[in-house]
């Protein structure tokens, strides 16, 4: 990067299924005020504002325009970002690019979703191709269900393994006061939850949450002057496949797919040979349990077909050697426009040592986060404690 970029502050709302007490502007403003407080900055000090959400998920267009008094973007330059599930991470990426380029020194990045207000299922069907997919489409469960079927048939995993991921996520969420689904559940509970679409059960899926996350990014000079614990953005990358390249239908495919391609490029940039050792914590975008197991493999935390063994052995637990999603992840909180940003913010909190009840019990110097866009793309972000990494 031309200039180094640091996360110098952030904040999030308490995420929940119902936020009848606030409108979209007020909800977003909660996260913005927390982020500014955390950064020790006033809105006047912010040079530019980037807002991200899932297009039309709350039944309104131009959210950058009519949320402007809540975001603090009034009179400031900025952009609205809508890249689907990845949008929160893309918004951080956009903020970081603008600072790295030298155009601005301090950027406020915001991701939000008030899912209770819109028709998520209907609008998600608009993501499907109008000629080839839309008449068949219905929300996101089917995508992950077919992924799960393939994964079990190919590698010999069972529903118990997805249940282990379901339990890990919700038990971690219980340690995170901001998480939505803080469920004290067992493997039995997960296996007995209602079947939605084989093999996806209710507890294999993320909730529909309302919430927002905001982050303040700054250039190196500002970060060193103003921030006690800056977290450095060391690398970012985005990779796309095409909508119909559903390559997890053969999870042992050798063809390049977005997640593996993106990880390979990130590791090359950073000189990473053993990602499970290089990074101290991972925050991945797992809207369904099976997706988390596939992330383990696509990120190279284990070999192909070994993801379910990692969760079986507790390797990815909060106190395991490769902690994944100590926050509870997307399985516990999915306010879509904020979800990919929450991965980055939660990873930053881990590096700062400020994650509180869900802080992983080891020295965290480096973290990797992923985003996940509906039809086969990802945005990844690597963070570190120092510029030496």
């Amino acid at each position: 990067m031309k200039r180094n970029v640091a996360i110098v502050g952030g904040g999030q709302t308490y995420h929940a299924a119902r936020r009848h007490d606030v409108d979209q502007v007020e909800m977003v403003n909660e996260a913005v005020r927390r982020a500014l407080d955390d950064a020790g900055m006033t809105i006047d000090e912010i040079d530019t504002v980037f807002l991200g959400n899932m297009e039309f998920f709350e039944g309104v267009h131009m959210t950058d325009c009519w949320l402007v008094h809540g975001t603090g973007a009034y009179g400031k330059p900025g952009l609205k970002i809508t890249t689907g599930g990845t949008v929160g991470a893309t918004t951080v990426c956009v903020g970081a690019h603008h600072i790295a380029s030298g155009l601005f020194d301090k950027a406020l990045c915001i991701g939000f979703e008030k899912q209770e207000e819109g028709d998520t299922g209907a609008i998600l069907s608009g993501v499907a191709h109008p000629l080839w997919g839309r008449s068949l489409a219905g929300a996101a469960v089917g995508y992950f269900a077919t992924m799960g079927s393939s994964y079990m048939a190919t590698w010999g995993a069972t529903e118990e393994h997805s249940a282990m991921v379901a339990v890990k996520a919700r038990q971690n969420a219980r340690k995170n006061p901001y998480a939505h689904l803080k469920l004290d559940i067992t493997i039995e509970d997960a296996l007995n939850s209602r079947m939605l679409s084989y093999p996806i059960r209710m507890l294999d899926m993320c909730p529909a949450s309302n919430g927002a996350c905001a982050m303040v990014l700054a250039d190196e000079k500002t970060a060193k002057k103003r921030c006690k614990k800056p977290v450095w953005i060391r690398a970012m990358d985005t990779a796309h496949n095409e909508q119909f390249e559903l390559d997890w239908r053969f999870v042992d495919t050798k063809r390049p797919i977005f997640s593996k391609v993106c990880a390979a490029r990130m590791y090359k940039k950073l000189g990473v040979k053993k990602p499970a050792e290089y990074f101290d914590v991972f925050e991945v975008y797992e809207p369904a349990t099976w997706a988390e197991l596939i992330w383990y493999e696509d990120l190279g935390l284990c070999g192909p077909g070994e993801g379910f063994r990692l969760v079986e052995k507790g390797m990815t637990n909060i106190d395991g050697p490769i902690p994944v999603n100590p926050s509870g992840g997307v399985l516990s909180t999915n306010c879509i426009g904020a979800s990919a940003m929450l991965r980055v913010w939660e990873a930053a909190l881990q590096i700062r040592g400020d994650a509180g009840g869900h802080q992983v019990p080891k020295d965290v110097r480096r973290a990797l986060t992923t985003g996940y866009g509906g039809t086969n793309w990802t945005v990844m972000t690597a963070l570190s404690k120092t510029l030496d990494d």
Partner: protein
Amino acid sequence: MEEIKHYEPFEVDQHLTANSRYYAGRMGSRFYVALRDQQKILGAKCPKCNKVLWPPRSTCQVCFSELTETVEIGPLGTVETFTVVTYNEPVQPRKAPFVYAVIKLDGADTGMAHFLDEVDLDEVHIGMRVRPVFARDRKANILDIQYFKPL
């Protein structure tokens, strides 16, 4: 123009129905309850800017102060600008001709767009004094103010 008659261009008609609901929030809820139950119109006061804003909001867009104080504005107001709509479109809420006016209510620093009815189209003018006509059956909707009309 390029010759493209080698095939029949195929068109697929698509319709999406998306329902939505909207929560009015801290300020919006106070506004609509006051309008519905008391026929009062509320603005939000920014003590720092010393402005009364309509629509009421929880954050002043200019100074970023958190706003909690509401003040009653109107009911009388002044036309700041207007137009007479003389064409019909399915999306329009009314059949032409009708008048849209931006009305600054007394005590407010910002204007609101609304219908101006019971008015001679030749006599509508900037600076015209108007008053609201409240709907009989009020549902906490901006059309609880049915329209404005000249004094």
